[in-house]
C-alpha cells in the first residue's frame, strides 16, 4: 500500500515536498507561521494522517482539499492541540501544538464545521461568552462585539436567540466568534458547507478581506473546489491522509501537464458513430469517451489544431471545443483518479481496505460531476 502511494507522489514532481525548506532567510511577512513535519495520526489500524509535511506562510490563504474522510479535520485538530499526533510535530508560530495548546489556541481561531451556539442565548450573549473565555471584558469587549456583528452583517439578528438562526447566520456568527479573539491565524473546517450561493459569495468576500486587509493567515479545509479556488493562494490536495500535491494553482497545472495527458472536450454536429470510428483511428488519440453529445478525448499532446483541421475536412461543424485542465476541478479530478487507481490495484492485495476504495472512488466521481 505504502509503496504505491509513494509512486503516486513521485509522479507529481517537486511541489509535493517543496515545503520544508522555507524557514531560513525569509523576510518578516513571508515567514512560515504553520510548520507541519512528518505529522502522523493512527486510529486503530487506519492511518488518518500519514507523514504530512506542510508549511503555510504568513498572510496566505491555504486551501486543504480532499474528499470526506481524508484526514483534514484530524489534521486541524492536531494543529489546535485537541488531538495528540502519533508521530511528528506541528508548530504554529514556533509553538509545538501538542505541548502548548493554550498559547496556540489564543492566537488561532477555529471555525468548526457545523458550528453551534447555545440556543437559548442570543447571538450577542454567545459572542460575549467566547470573549470572556478569551479574557476580554467590559467596554472593550462590547465594542468589539458590535464591530464584529456589523462586519458579518448580523447586527439586526444579534439580539435574537441563537436557536432561531439559519445555517448561514450561524456560519456568519461563527466567523464573528472566531474574530473575537483577534487571531493571527484562522482555521476553517468546511466553511462553505450548506450555504446558499449568496451567502457563499459574502463568505468568500469576507475571507478575502480577512486575508488582504487584516493580514491574517487562513487555512481552509474543504471538499468543494470551486468556492475555494476563488480565494486560495495555494492549495494542497489531501487524499487518504497524504498530501499528494501542493502549490499554487498554476504550479499544480504545470505539474499536471508534465504528467502528459490532455483532455479535450468536443461537441460536434452531427455526432455519429462513424465519426467515433474515424477519430479512434487518428494518431495521438488515446481514449474517447462519449458523454451525451460531448466527446471527451484523451491524448498525449495538444491535438486541437490537428483535430479542427480533420473535422473541417470531413465537413463536421464544431460547436464547442475546450481544453480541460487549469481549473482546480480538473486538477482535483486528476489527482483523485491517481489515488483511486492505486487504491484499486491495492484492493486486490488487501481486502481489509475495501471500505476505503469505495470512498475514494465515490469522491472522485463526485469531483467529476462537480
Amino acid at each position, binding site marked *: 500500500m505504502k509503496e504505491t502511494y509513494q509512486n503516486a507522489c513521485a509522479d507529481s514532481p517537486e511541489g509535493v515536498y517543496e515545503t520544508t525548506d522555507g524557514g531560513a532567510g525569509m523576510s518578516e511577512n513571508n515567514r512560515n507561521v504553520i510548520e507541519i513535519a512528518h505529522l502522523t495520526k493512527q486510529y486503530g489500524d487506519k492511518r488518518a494522517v500519514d507523514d504530512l509535511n506542510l508549511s503555510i506562510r504568513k498572510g496566505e490563504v491555504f486551501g486543504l482539499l480532499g474528499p470526506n474522510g481524508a484526514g483534514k479535520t484530524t489534521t486541524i485538530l492536531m494543529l489546535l492541540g485537541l488531538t495528540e499526533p502519533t508521530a511528528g510535530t506541528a508548530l504554529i508560530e514556533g509553538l509545538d501544538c501538542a505541548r502548548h495548546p493554550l498559547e496556540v489556541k489564543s492566537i488561532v481561531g477555529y471555525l468548526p464545521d457545523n458550528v453551534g451556539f447555545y440556543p437559548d442565548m442570543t447571538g450577542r450573549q454567545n459572542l460575549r461568552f467566547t470573549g470572556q473565555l478569551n479574557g476580554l471584558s467590559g467596554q472593550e469587549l462590547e465594542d468589539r462585539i458590535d464591530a464584529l456583528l456589523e462586519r458579518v452583517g448580523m447586527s439586526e439578528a444579534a439580539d435574537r436567540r441563537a436557536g432561531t438562526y439559519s445555517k448561514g447566520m450561524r456560519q456568519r456568527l*461563527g466567523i464573528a466568534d472566531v474574530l473575537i479573539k483577534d487571531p493571527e491565524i484562522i482555521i476553517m473546517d468546511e466553511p462553505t458547507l450548506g450555504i446558499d450561493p449568496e451567502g457563499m459569495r459574502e463568505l468568500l468576500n469576507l475571507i478575502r478581506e480577512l486575508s488582504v486587509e487584516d493580514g491574517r493567515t487562513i487555512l481552509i479545509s474543504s471538499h468543494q473546489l470551486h468556492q475555494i479556488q476563488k480565494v486560495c493562494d495555494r492549495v494542497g490536495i489531501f487524499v487518504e491522509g497524504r498530501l499528494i500535491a501542493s502549490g499554487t494553482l498554476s504550479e499544480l497545472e504545470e505539474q499536471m501537464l508534465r504528467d502528459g495527458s490532455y483532455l479535450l472536450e468536443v461537441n460536434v454536429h452531427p455526432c455519429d458513430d462513424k465519426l467515433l470510428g474515424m477519430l479512434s483511428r487518428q494518431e495521438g488519440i488515446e481514449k474517447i469517451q462519449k458523454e451525451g453529445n460531448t466527446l471527451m478525448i484523451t491524448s498525449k499532446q495538444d491535438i486541437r489544431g490537428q483535430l479542427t483541421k480533420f473535422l473541417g475536412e470531413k465537413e463536421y461543424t464544431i460547436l464547442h471545443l475546450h481544453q480541460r485542465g487549469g481549473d482546480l476541478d480538473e486538477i482535483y479530478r486528476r489527482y483523485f483518479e491517481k489515488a483511486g487507481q492505486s487504491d484499486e490495484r491495492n484492493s486486490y492485495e488487501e481486502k481489509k481496505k475495501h471500505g476505503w476504495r469505495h470512498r475514494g472512488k465515490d469522491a472522485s466521481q463526485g469531483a467529476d460531476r462537480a
Partner: protein
Amino acid sequence: MSFIALLGPIIGLALGFDAVNSERAGGTLNRLVSQPIYRDSIIIGKFLAGTAVIAAIIYTMGIAIGAVGVIVAGVKPSGEEVWRILVFLTFTVVYVAFWLALSIWFSVVCRHAATSALASIALWVFFAIFMSLVSSIIANAVYPVGDDYHAMINSYNNYTLNLSLNRISPYYLYSEAVSTIMNPTVRSVNIVTMDQLVGAVSGYLSLGQSLLLVWPHLTGLAALMLIAFGGSYIGFMRQEVRAN
C-alpha cells in the same frame, strides 16, 4: 427522608444527563475547546456548577420547610436539632451530587442525551428498588436460612452479608445515614447481639456520637461521588473532540 432518597437523584440526573453530549451534538463543544482554556475546566465547571445548584436547592428547601414547621408547630428547635438538620442537608447534597457526577459520566460516554438519560435512570431504579432484592438473594444463597438448623447458624452472617451488599448502593447508604442523623434513638447501624445490650442505658445519642456512627457512610458517599466524577473526568479528557 426515604422520599428524598428515592427522588433526590432525579435532580442530579436532570442536571447532568446531557452535560457533555448535548454540547457535542450542538457543535458548541468544538467551539468551547478551541478557546484558550484548559480542558479540565470544562468538565470541572460542569460538575461544580451542578453541585452549586443542588446545594442551593437543598439548603433553601430544607431551611424553608424547617421554618414552616417552626411556624406551624410553634416548637422552637434546640441548637443541636438545627445542627442535625444541617448535617442531614449536607448528606443530601453529597448524595445528589453523586448522581450528578454519575449522569455526567454517562453523558461523556454516550453519544445521545437519550441514551445517557435512560442509562442513569436504569441505574437509579436498580439501586432504589432492586438492590435490596439482589442482595437478599445473594445472602440467602451464601448463608441459607431455610430451616431452623441453618437459620440458627447462619442468620447472623446472612444478615451481615445482606447489609454489606446493600451498602454498596448509595441509596441504602444515604437512607441509613440520614435516619441515624435525624433520629437520636438510633444507637447502632449494625446488628447488635443481646450480649452487647446487657447493661446498656437507653438514652439519646448526642450529635457527635450519631455522626461518629455514620462517618463511614459519609466518606463512602463522598468516595462514590469522587469515583463517578473521576470517571467522567478521565473519560472526557481522553475523548476525541470531533463531533461525528
